[in-house]
C-alpha cells in the first residue's frame, strides 16, 4: 500500500450567498483505506462531496486527486480520471433495464460514446463485462428487468454497479444505506467492505447510521457546521468529547434514530 494520498483537500471553503456551508476544511485520504465522513444534519457533508466531485467549485481552497489539482474541473473530466460518486437520492436510469444501466458507463469507459453505426446487440464483450459486474453486486438474476420495477435496496446496488463499471480508483458514496431496511443495510455494508478489501478502489463514504460507520470505516472525519471537528480511528472518534457534544450528548454507539 502506497503512502501517497489519493485525495487531498486543502483549506476548502464554500459559501452560498451569505451562508457558509464549508469553512477551511483540510483532509487527506490514503489509497486503499476505507474512510467515512460523518456529522449531524446540515454539517456540510453533501456540499463537501459536491465540491470534491466537481459539481460545485470551491469558493477558496484546493482539491488534489492523485496529486493533480482538480478543483473546478467538470465532473465528467474527474470521472475519466477515476473519481466516481453515488448520490444520497438514488441516481440511476429508471426506464432502462438493469443490464442497460451498467452498459451506459461501460460504453463510455470503452470510448464508444459516439459509436453510432455499430449494433449494440453485437457488443458481446461489453455484455460479458456487465454480467461480471452485476454478479459482483448480486444482481445477475434480474439483468433484463426494468430498473423502476425493482425493490429500493436493489436500486441502490445498481448505482454501485454503475460506479464500478467505470473502474474507479476513488469512489465517494453519499449515504449508501439511507432508507434501507436492516437486511438491505447488511448486504450493502458487506459489499462495500468486500469491494474495499478485494479491489484497487478506495472508498470514502458519508453515513448517518453510526453502526454502519463504526463497522466499516478505518478512519473517520467529523464535520460540524461546515468545519472539520475531528479525525481519527473509530476508537478515537468514539471517545472524543467534542464529537459527543456535537451530537447533543447522544451516545455514538446507538444506531442513528
Amino acid at each position: 500500500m502506497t503512502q501517497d494520498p489519493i485525495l487531498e483537500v486543502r483549506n476548502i471553503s464554500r459559501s452560498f450567498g451569505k451562508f457558509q456551508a464549508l469553512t477551511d476544511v483540510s483532509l487527506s485520504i490514503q489509497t486503499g483505506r476505507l474512510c467515512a465522513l460523518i456529522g449531524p444534519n446540515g454539517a456540510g457533508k453533501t456540499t463537501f462531496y459536491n465540491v470534491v466531485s466537481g459539481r460545485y467549485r470551491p469558493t477558496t481552497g484546493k482539491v488534489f486527486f492523485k496529486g493533480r489539482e482538480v478543483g473546478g474541473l467538470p465532473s465528467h473530466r474527474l470521472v475519466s480520471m477515476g473519481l466516481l460518486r453515488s448520490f444520497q437520492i438514488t441516481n440511476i436510469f429508471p426506464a432502462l433495464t438493469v443490464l442497460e444501466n451498467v452498459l451506459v458507463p461501460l460504453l463510455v469507459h470503452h470510448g464508444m460514446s459516439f459509436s453510432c453505426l455499430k449494433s449494440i446487440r453485437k457488443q458481446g464483450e461489453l455484455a460479458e463485462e456487465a454480467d461480471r459486474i452485476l454478479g459482483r453486486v448480486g444482481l445477475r438474476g434480474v439483468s433484463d428487468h426494468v430498473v423502476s420495477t425493482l425493490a429500493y435496496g436493489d436500486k441502490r446496488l445498481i448505482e454501485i454497479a454503475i460506479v464500478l463499471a467505470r473502474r474507479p480508483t476513488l469512489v465517494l458514496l453519499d449515504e449508501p444505506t439511507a432508507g434501507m431496511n436492516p437486511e438491505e443495510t447488511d448486504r450493502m455494508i458487506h459489499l462495500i467492505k468486500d469491494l474495499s478489501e478485494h479491489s484497487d478502489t478506495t472508498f470514502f463514504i458519508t453515513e448517518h447510521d453510526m453502526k454502519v460507520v463504526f463497522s466499516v470505516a478505518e478512519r473517520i472525519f467529523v464535520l460540524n457546521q461546515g468545519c472539520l471537528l475531528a479525525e481519527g480511528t473509530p476508537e478515537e472518534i468514539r471517545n472524543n468529547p467534542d464529537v459527543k457534544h456535537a451530537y447533543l450528548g447522544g451516545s455514538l454507539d446507538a444506531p442513528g434514530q
Partner: protein
Amino acid sequence: MKILPRFPLIPGLVLFGALISAPFILSIYWVMILTEILTMGLFAMSFNLLFGYTGLLSFGQAGFFGAGAYCAVLTLLHGPASLWAALAAGFLGAALLALPIGWLCVRRDEIYFAILTLGFGMMLFTVAHNWRSVTGGSDGLGNFTLPKLDLFGWSISLFNPRHFYFLVLLIAAAGALLLLRVVRSPFGLLLRGTRENSNRVSFVGANVRSVRLFAFVVSGALAGLAGALFALFNRIASPEMLHWAFSGKAVLMTILGGSGVFLGPAVGAAIFFVLEHSITAYTTNWMIFLGMILIVLVLVFPKGVLGSAVDFIDRFRKGGGR
C-alpha cells in the same frame, strides 16, 4: 444475455412490401397522399430522435426541414441538374445549420431548450420570408425543372407521381434505416440514458452537451432530407415550411403515433393525413373534427396509437391476454 430485443424484422418487411405494392393498387390521388405521409413520416421520425430518444422537445425542427428544402431547390436552380446533388444539399445544408444552432440550444434542457429552438425557428422563418433575392420571399422558390433520376445508368422521369413515390420510398426507407442503426447503437443507448438521467450520464464521464449536439445534428440532417423531398415533390420551397406551426405538426404526429416506438411518428403521420383527406371530403370545417378525433385518440392512447398497440401485443404474448 441479450442487450436489446431483436427488431421485429418480419412485420418490417411486410410493411415495406406493402409500401412497394401500394402504387399498383391505389389511385394517383392516394399515391400522392402516401408520398406526403412518407416524407412527413421521415420528418417526424427525425424529430423523435430528439424527443423520444434524447428527451429534448424541439419546436424548431421545421427550420431544418425548410433549410433542406431551400438548399435542394437552390442547388437545382444554380448548381448541377442532379436529383442526388439536390438531396445531398438538403441533407448536408441542414446538418451544417444544425451545428451552430444546436451548439447554443443544448446548453439548456426541458422547457428552456424548447424555447431556444422555437426562437431559432422563428428567426429562420423570417430569413426565408424576407430575404427576397435568395429565397423568393413569401412566394417561395419554384420554377425549377425537375431533372431525371439517374439510377445505375437508368434515366427515369419523375413527372409520373408513381415514379416519384418510389424515389420517396427509397429515400425515406434509407433515412429510417440510418435512424434505426443509430438508436440501436451504443450511442443510441447513451441517448436513452441521457433522456432518463442526464446528471448520471455526466457522472459516468460523458459530456452530455456533446452527446445532445450530435443527436441534434443527425436529427437536423434527416429533417433536411425530408424537406428536400417535400420541395421536389411540391415543386416549391416556401417560408411556411419553416414556420413553427409546421414544427408543431411533427410534435403532433409523434405524440399521435407514439414517441416510445421506432415507427410511431410515421404511423402518426399516416393517421394525420388520412384523417385530413377523409374529413375535407365532407366538410370545410375539417379542423374541428380533426381536433376532436385527435383529442379522443390522445386520451384513449396516451402512449400513441402504435405504442398502445405494441403494448397490447406484448401483454397478449406474455400473459395470454390478461
